[in-house]
């Protein structure tokens, strides 16, 4: 099990130190005058919101970016890495948030690409098998990366680093793609590495994990270093406040309505996989009740986008039975027709799917609202109506705009997301279906959007939220179902669920044999690797 590393001995010199590091992109300063130290064998967290400058900072360490001013010392000597190869040669390894893997290549080829040219090619497959088994993250050298699970793909990334015996390992948001169980496995590996003297720089915004794994944290906000803290002496709330800069109001957990009528019912929805990297949907059944938020959890790539397409009507098949209010079959209706029936949708990708970046807000507001009275008169768009509607949505949902009616692309991610969610909620739908409502959105906007969805349900509508973010699922849902490899579990009352049970469902087991937890999972992983 994971045991947090004891604090570093301040007697030993730092492995890596940074002094006054600054990096700007045009007018935007991503990092401002940052000092930083990490010691050998230390598990150190780099904490901050999206856009706080974490990625810029580690890219400077790894030689992908060059600081405008300031410098690094490596083992006491000033050093400058002009590219990642030099950083790797010095003993720095990095695992990226969005993996730098090549799907159409084998594990060996992927690893060979990250090794220096002089690294012996012969015996590499053997070495990979040996070393990965040694760290408890077994890998088959000749399997294709595209065939691996996300957790296994991350092992490939880690193995790339381990083969070069790094003294510093940088992990950029490594747990965002993992099940809770896989996260524990990863932490075991990291603790093992730290015990051998390798320093680990762990980037995250998940506070529980940071408290569990690391001993010290450097906190960034808006490009500035805000604090360097001992993670054991701070509560997660204190860490969160340092990270965000303001107090965070917790949203009220919703109260589940009793015996609410079903708004929509889906039975036996199946969908074959479209392409090689798509997931087939298998016999999906779900019921959306009035006044209720149904959370659909699951790791990315388990059929979320396919399910969303089927719900919105962007994909329509014959093997689908969608029923509205028990009677009317809407399975063959297109998205616009479904909207006329009181449904509303917010797809995952806000740029280009939920909104058109090159259109103005008023035009974007109209795109899903043509059917509203007054929007179109005798085939001509009522521009005043559109502008007023956009203004109303912006006011209701606190959308900060650079001008009265800007291009959608001029809005920040959080503000545009508030706008596309707000646009749908403003129509007072009977059923709102949202995919990844707060992906890449700052904490403040995320809270706002979650509260808006809860309020909509409280007003008697039904809400379906598809999200990879477990914290979000628990914050908004009355009932929770889990999507795994295209199959949807039963919807369980949220009160009966915890991250462990959800993690099991994400791994494909059922709640009923929860007692066999760990054994099932480790066996499954081994089978996948061995078989």
């Amino acid at each position: 099990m994971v045991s947090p590393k004891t604090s570093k001995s301040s007697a030993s010199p730092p492995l890596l130190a940074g002094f006054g590091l600054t990096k700007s992109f045009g007018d935007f300063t991503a990092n401002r005058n940052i000092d930083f130290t990490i010691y050998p064998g230390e598990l150190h967290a780099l904490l901050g919101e999206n856009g706080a400058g974490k990625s810029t900072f580690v890219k400077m360490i790894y030689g992908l970016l060059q600081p405008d001013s300031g410098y690094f010392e490596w083992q006491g000597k000033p050093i400058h890495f002009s590219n990642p190869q030099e950083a790797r040669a010095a003993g720095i390894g990095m695992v990226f948030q969005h993996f730098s893997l090549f799907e159409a290549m084998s594990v060996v080829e992927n690893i060979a690409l990250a090794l220096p040219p002089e690294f012996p090619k012969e015996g590499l497959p053997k070495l990979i098998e040996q070393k990965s088994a040694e760290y408890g993250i077994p890998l088959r050298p000749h399997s294709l990366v595209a065939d691996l699970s996300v957790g296994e793909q991350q092992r490939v990334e880690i193995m790339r680093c381990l083969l070069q015996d790094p003294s510093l390992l940088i992990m950029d948001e490594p747990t965002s793609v993992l099940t809770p169980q896989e996260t524990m496995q990863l932490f075991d590996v990291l603790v093992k590495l730290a015990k051998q003297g390798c320093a680990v720089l762990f980037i995250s915004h998940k506070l529980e994990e940071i408290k569990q794994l690391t001993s010290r944290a450097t906190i960034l906000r808006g490009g500035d270093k805000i604090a360097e803290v001992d993670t054991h002496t701070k509560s997660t709330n204190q860490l969160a406040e340092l990270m965000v800069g303001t107090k965070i109001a917790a949203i009220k957990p919703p109260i589940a309505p009793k015996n609410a009528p079903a708004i929509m019912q889906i039975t036996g929805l199946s969908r074959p996989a479209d392409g090689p990297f798509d997931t087939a949907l298998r016999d999906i059944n779900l019921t959306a009740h009035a006044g209720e938020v149904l959370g659909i959890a699951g790791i990315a790539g388990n059929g979320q986008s396919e399910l969303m397409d089927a719900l919105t009507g962007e994909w329509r098949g014959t093997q689908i039975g969608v029923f509205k209010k028990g009677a009317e079959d809407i399975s063959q209706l297109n998205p616009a027709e479904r909207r006329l029936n009181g449904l509303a949708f917010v797809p995952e990708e806000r740029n280009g799917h939920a909104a058109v970046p090159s259109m103005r807000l008023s035009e974007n507001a109209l795109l899903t609202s043509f059917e509203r009275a007054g929007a179109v008169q005798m085939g001509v768009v009522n521009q005043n109506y559109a502008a007023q509607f956009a203004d109303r949505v912006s006011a209701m949902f606190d959308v900060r705009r650079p001008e009265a009616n800007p291009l959608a692309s001029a809005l920040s991610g959080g503000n545009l997301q508030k706008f596309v969610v707000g646009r749908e909620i403003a129509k007072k739908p009977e059923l709102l279906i949202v995919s990844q409502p707060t992906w890449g959105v700052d904490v403040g906007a995320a809270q706002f959007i979650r509260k808006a969805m809860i309020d909509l349900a409280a007003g008697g509508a039904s809400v379906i939220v598809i999200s990879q973010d477990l914290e979000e699922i628990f914050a908004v849902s009355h009932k929770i179902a889990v999507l795994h490899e295209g199959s949807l579990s039963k919807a369980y009352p949220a009160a009966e669920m915890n991250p462990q049970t959800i993690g099991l469902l994400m791994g494909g087991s059922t709640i009923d044999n929860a007692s066999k937890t760990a054994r099932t999972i480790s066996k499954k992983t081994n089978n996948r690797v061995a078989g």
Partner: protein
Amino acid sequence: MFDELLLTVLLTSVPLILAATGELVVERSGVLNLGVEGMMLMGAVAAFGAASLSGNPYIGIVGGGLAGMAVAGVFALFVLGLATNQVATGLALTIFGTGLSGLIGAPLVGQAIDGLPSMTLPLLSDIPLIGVFFQLDIMAYLSILIVALTSIFLMRSRAGLILRSVGINHDSAHALGYNVLQVRFFAILFGGFMAGLGGAYLPLVLTPHWAEGMTAGRGWIALALVVFASWQPWRVSIGAVLFGGVTIMQLAGQARGWTIPAQFLSMMPYLATIVVLVTISGRGRNVFGAPMHLGKRFFMTR
């Protein structure tokens, strides 16, 4: 009689092999260069001009290759340096090459040169049927060697691994510290050189004179061939012989007054490519197919 036909088929396939192998390397690095036809024409006119001026067809080979490479360099400048749209730039390159080669070649029309001599290997060339393979010229022999070397380079060497990685995911390759633009630049130059060689083969071997637009769509067939070969060098040579065979059949058919319209035969290579594409994509996970970042523009990220 059959020997002769087979020889003609082989000769017809050489320019296709050369140009398609070059384009294959370019596409494996993630760049789609639709300017093959234009580069071939530039190669053809330069080869003819160089051979005519020097009186030496071997100098024509080098001239053809370099001319193809030079126009490919212009293409690289646009798609890599200025990150322009690859499809549009490639088409522009074809139009540019067609026009410029016609302009340069205007005074050359009607002239004749000594083509490349065939290098018949003793004994081996006397074997019935197979002997045809040993009655070729130096460029034909070279083309086989180049296919072999390209295959080894792509599949066995570290540099080839890096080139393929850039084509599969340029962001990942960049993150690992590889110079995406440099890799693509050299790939494009190689592709241009090969297209130039392919073009040079036409006036140096097939028809020893220059005519405007003499590639007659071979550049487009080479492009189709890369897809037909599903980006595997060896399959390019097999496909080239097949496509070459179709071209010859078309000519032979016309001579003999077959009832199949010539237009039908000239569409066969493209039809075959479509059939192959459909078969490949029907096979499920197509991992040895198109490089995933083919035709995508690369921008350095923060």
